[in-house]
């Protein structure tokens, strides 16, 4: 049976209902303030449209949110992702400008930098037992410094069609960043579901001590998730760098860690660790990006941006809170009775 009722109950069981409702509501607002925004056009073999814009712009946050989900599922957190974006971008840009390396190698180098950063975080957390927020705070501060050091404080710009493709290219009508998100999402789903990694991650997050007793390699799991988060952040950094064809070590990914964490939480994952959902984290990222876009389209003066953002966040969270739902239901009952 696949009636609308059963779809709704399936979504509800997976915690997907309310995030999707929130996304739908924001899109509704966008349609109201700008009816033409979601119109699709096809031009030069590329599909244009508001939805694609939102996907495209939301890609860095979505990529990071995927990695962040895994880290959060183990009960950790990664504040360094913005700085890792900067490092990866700086590494790539400097290699493009300074060497003749082929683009795939440059991309690998950028990812390698992210992996190294992730491993550093993972070692501090898993190896030395430093609290995740502090361990990654270190790289949040120092990492951007490293990126600036590489760039000498300037934006390193470059002309490189092949590399720019990562950020602005089109494949089968869709922008490259959208493909990257889909690819990483699919890969991560595959890796976590088709191996025992997903189970181990949730077990470690839910009760690290019991997992250790059960023989789960707790440290290795933690190291792995930070490494993945580093890779995701690096990829996001490459996308952002390719997007403007320049590595802006000072500003790329500034405060993106907060957006990514927000995305994960809006997707229903608890910061205490345990259960997580990668798909919903991406939905969370789309919600945030849609909100940003809606604010721009609405024409409300920018000084109200943050107030609006906070109001929407609280509304979305309340929408998901079982307590608020119960209150709403009882209110409705009182009204109808």
């Amino acid at each position, binding site marked *: 049976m696949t009636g609308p009722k059963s779809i709704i109950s399936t979504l509800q069981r997976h915690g997907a209902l309310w995030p999707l409702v929130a996304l739908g509501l924001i899109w509704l607002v966008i349609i109201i303030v700008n009816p033409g925004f979601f119109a699709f056009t096809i*031009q030069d073999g590329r599909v244009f449209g508001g939805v694609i814009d939102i996907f495209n712009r939301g890609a860095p946050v979505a990529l990071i949110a995927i990695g962040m989900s895994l880290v959060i599922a183990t009960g950790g957190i990664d504040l360094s992702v913005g700085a890792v974006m900067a490092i990866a971008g700086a590494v790539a840009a400097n290699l493009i400008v300074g060497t003749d390396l082929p683009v795939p190698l440059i991309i690998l180098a950028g990812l390698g930098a992210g992996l190294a950063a992730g491993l550093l975080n993972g070692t501090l957390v898993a190896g030395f037992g430093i609290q995740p927020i502090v361990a990654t705070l270190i790289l949040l501060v120092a990492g951007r410094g490293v990126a*600036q050091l590489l760039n000498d404080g300037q934006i390193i710009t470059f002309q490189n069609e092949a590399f720019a493709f990562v950020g602005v290219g089109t494949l089968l009508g869709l922008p490259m960043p959208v493909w990257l998100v889909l690819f990483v999402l699919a890969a991560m789903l595959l890796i976590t579901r088709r191996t025992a990694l997903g189970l181990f991650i949730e077990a470690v997050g839910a009760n690290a001590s019991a997992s250790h007793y059960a023989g789960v390699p707790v440290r290795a799991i933690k190291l792995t998730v930070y490494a993945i988060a580093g890779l995701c952040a690096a990829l996001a950094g490459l996308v952002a760098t390719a997007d403007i*064809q320049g590595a*802006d070590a000072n500003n790329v990914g500034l405060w993106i860690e907060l957006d990514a964490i927000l995305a994960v939480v809006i997707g229903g994952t608890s910061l205490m660790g345990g259960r997580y959902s990668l798909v919903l984290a991406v939905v969370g990222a789309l919600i945030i990006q849609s909100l940003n876009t809606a604010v721009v389209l609405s024409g409300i003066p920018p000084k109200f941006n943050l107030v609006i953002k906070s109001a929407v966040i609280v509304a979305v969270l309340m929408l998901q809170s079982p307590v608020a739902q119960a209150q709403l239901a009882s209110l409705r009952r009182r009204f109808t009775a």
Partner: protein
Amino acid sequence: GSGSSEGAANDQLTVGFSQVGSESGWRTSFTQAVQAEARDRGIDLKFSDAQQKQENQIRAVRSFIAQGVDAIVIAPVVETGWKPVLTEAKRAGIPVVIVDRNMALKDDSLYLTRVASDFVEEGRKAGRWLMEETGGDCDIVELQGTVGATAAIDRMTGFNEVIANYPDAEIVMTQTADFTRARGKEIMETFLRAMDPADICAVWAHNDEMALGAVIAMKEAGIDPGDDILVVSVDAVPDIFKAMADGDTNATVELSPHMGGPAFDAIEAHLRGESVDKLISVNGDLFTQETAAEEYQKRTAG
């Protein structure tokens, strides 16, 4: 090493320099220009990066005072809030030079001189140029700097002041792009999606970075920036000259990063006992495509 605050002239001069941070390429150029200038003059420069926080700057200034430097140069994060710490510097007999942004101070004995640019005037210059170029008939989209930043507020004020005189000139969409290239591109993209690009006459960006981001967005949308849509911005970083030379943007107002020289001149004059003007203006010019290639050569050569 440090001298007493009375500073014997033959001692090496020690100057504390409190910089805002390193939030943009322009800021870094500014820092490097001051450092280079100090090196050339044999000044021992104590540099402190405040990472965009006024409290860090105040801390740094107080450390400089405790250290007994001969003079202090401050590029303030924000205009207000300097009276207490400058009073302390004055009490310690250390001259203070304000560079770049202004400080709101009633008592001008608290500082030696200001080597300053005028953000409002920069906005006016950009506005005047655009109005001349378009005959005062222009639907403008604006890329604002960080909400609350002095540079953003003042440049907006100056620009709006000018276009207020032209009934056909109007800002049709405005949004903050945080002074960054990436956000400039993103916001411009949304603008282009939200309205018919043909209805946009010009982009007015509070700094070059956002303008450069907008240029990328326009190109990707199949628009020819500089021709279809005019682009005017502020700062005059090297990259914008390249863009102008390529015909992608139209004009920029210079915000000179070379404020170290006049600042040190003033300090040295003061220590020699000479009197110093309270304001040393370093207002920059407006550059257009004509001289762009040449300027680019000049600025990247050094």
